[in-house]
């Protein structure tokens, strides 16, 4: 059995603020995807992570969160794979998202994300599902705006 490994598919390091980052033409060569985002934003707000540009309410999620004074958990339907519940302007966030079986065409796609904002939002984990059997060929992360210096790395994990 081959040793599972990370292979970089694509990366973006922003030299100036941008409202979205898209990884397109994602090859179907791997088992899972890992998206590592270390980012801050120019304004506070919710981000979106959409597969194949699907902006419909086709995503469900459950998350848990600890913000330093309390804990919470919720479920819901959304128009995005929840990358992160909320970005506070200027706070650096590290979000690691694993998307399983992204190229399969016989199942909905599921993702697990771990997020870290040690200043405000805190530590959180999100499990989400995209109710679509299509292979994921693109991922778009959007917010107004990703700040300069934000880094986005997309890896494939070999089976």
């Amino acid at each position, binding site marked *: 059995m081959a040793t599972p490994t990370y292979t970089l598919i694509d990366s973006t390091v922003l030299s100036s603020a941008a409202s979205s980052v898209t990884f397109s033409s994602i090859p179907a060569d791997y088992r899972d995807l890992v998206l590592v985002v270390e980012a801050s934003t120019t304004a506070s707000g919710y981000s979106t992570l959409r597969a194949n540009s699907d902006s419909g309410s086709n995503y469900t999620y459950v998350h848990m*969160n600890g913000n330093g004074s309390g804990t919470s958990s919720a479920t819901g339907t959304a128009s995005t794979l929840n990358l992160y519940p909320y970005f506070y302007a200027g706070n*650096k966030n590290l979000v690691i998202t694993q998307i399983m079986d992204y190229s399969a065409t016989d199942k909905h796609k599921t993702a697990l994300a771990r997020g870290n904002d040690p200043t405000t939002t805190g*530590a959180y984990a999100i499990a989400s599902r995209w109710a679509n059997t299509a292979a994921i060929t693109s991922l778009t992360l959007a917010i107004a705006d990703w700040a300069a210096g934000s880094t986005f790395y997309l890896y494939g994990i070999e089976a």
Partner: protein
Amino acid sequence: MGMQLIETIEVTDTSAPLYLEFANIDQDGVDLLVTLSARAASGTPQYRSNYLWLNGLSSGFSAIRLSGNGSSTSSTSASNSYAPTMTGTSATASTFANAQYYISNYTSSENKAIALDSVTENNGTTVFMLIDAYQWANTDAITNVKIGGSTTFAQYSTASLYKITAD
């Protein structure tokens, strides 16, 4: 290429080292991943008794933590680098705590972001599951990672350091 094992440290005897340390870390990666399987060489479960040290420092950290113990959850803010809880000698034999640190952009000249996931379990009677969001307010590239400083490690404890590269 991709994800490469840099080094694994295993406590092969009963010397009970105070630190598990990775020195002279390559500077050609993007991120670091540290995995830990650890048991304390003494006592009851050692709740957050050790520290993560970067470049020899256990200062400059801020964190928000989320924990669950099987019956309740809690969240706290902190300004230290507490490492995961470890099982101790009074715990069921062969039970070890597990943890994973993910350190992004470890060579950058920005403050460092760190995610910690860990679980400590003693035969179903004592459980700690922890996820921590860390920042290390230091702009130096990370060249040294060590865990410890307070509670010694039992035999068969291991730590592995991986680098994730962009090639």
